[in-house]
């Protein structure tokens, strides 16, 4: 990954007061307060790197050429690498311009890290089936296979998804499993005694 001049360290200059919205200027981490509304809190200041120029008009010299197509005139600056790029390479994403090359390489992964997504929670569904098994025992022939399916689904997801493994601990699933198989055994005994 290249950082060819497109990134610069941004000195954090302040933040909006959470109470009245006035801009408060703070240089370093520590207690902060608003002189107008007397809001008090703590501010932890970081030093991120930011793109210096995102638009072609702000940074492009007249004779700049595309980094990937040297015969074409540059029309934009890639927000990921800082390379000059032509219209063939430019891809607009989330209001910023990136080069197709950057998106095809590590950039796509880096950008996707910022996007929200959803994580399935088979353990939560298993919880609901277990509650259903207690109160709607008549539905147990349907609920038990579904609950077992969710239990093994949760075990599988724990192996493949690091985040899920961090959220749902092994002991949590073990307790659910014991509860599920105890209920299954109990219902099998009840149904067996009814049939026989």
């Amino acid at each position, binding site marked *: 990954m290249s*950082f060819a001049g497109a990134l610069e360290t941004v000195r954090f200059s302040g933040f909006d007061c959470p109470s009245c919205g006035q801009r408060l200027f703070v240089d370093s981490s520590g207690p902060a307060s608003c002189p107008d509304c007397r809001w008090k809190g703590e*501010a932890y*200041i970081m030093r*991120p*790197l930011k793109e210096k120029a995102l638009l072609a008009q702000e940074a492009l010299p007249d004779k700049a050429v595309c980094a990937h197509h040297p015969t074409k005139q540059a029309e934009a600056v890639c927000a990921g690498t800082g390379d000059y790029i032509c219209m063939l390479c430019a891809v607009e994403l989330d209001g910023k311009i990136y080069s197709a090359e950057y998106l095809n390489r590590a950039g796509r992964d880096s950008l996707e890290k910022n996007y929200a997504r959803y994580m399935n*929670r088979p353990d939560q569904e298993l919880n609901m089936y277990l509650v259903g098994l207690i109160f709607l025992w008549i539905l147990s022939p349907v609920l038990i296979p579904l609950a077992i399916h969710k239990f093994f689904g949760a075990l599988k997801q724990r192996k493949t998804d690091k985040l899920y493994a961090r959220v749902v601990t092994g002991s949590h699933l073990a307790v659910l499993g014991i509860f599920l198989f105890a209920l299954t055994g109990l219902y099998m005994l009840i149904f067996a005694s009814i049939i026989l």
Partner: protein
Amino acid sequence: MADLKIAGLVNRMSLIVADEALVILEHSSTKDRVIKILYENIESIIVWKKTSWVSMILAMVILGGAAYIPLSAYRTLKDESMLWVAIFLGVLLVALELVMVIRKKHYLRINHGGEAFNVVAPVFPWQIRKFIGSVKEKTEAAQKELREKRDQAAHVHHEPAEAEPASAPLPPASA
């Protein structure tokens, strides 16, 4: 672990200090919404706290009222068990009020990439301190690493003979 688990009346949320990003999980019945905030993008974290006076007064009214009933019953019936029930409820009320004084509502605002993510966390102060400490540590490490990479790249692309002003755009990386 320095993760923060927030269990409100309606919303449940987890803030996980993962290796590459701060992961926020908004729990729902069958799915969790996952929001990742990269450490390198975090600009600042603002924290402030408020004591929930409404909850304290509500608890005082409900538990105080509940303790008053057996106390008045003890006065009229002279049944000692009623006194013990009243004492138990009184101790419970005092303990609850103490917890509410210490466990304030913490408001967190994480500013990242020009956006702000707000979290309301009714947690103990030491939990929030531990959480912010680890986020700060990870953020500083990520931003330092990024700065070093940027400096290395700038060193490779800049020839020492040509002195350029700091604000001038650099030539394309692959050129």
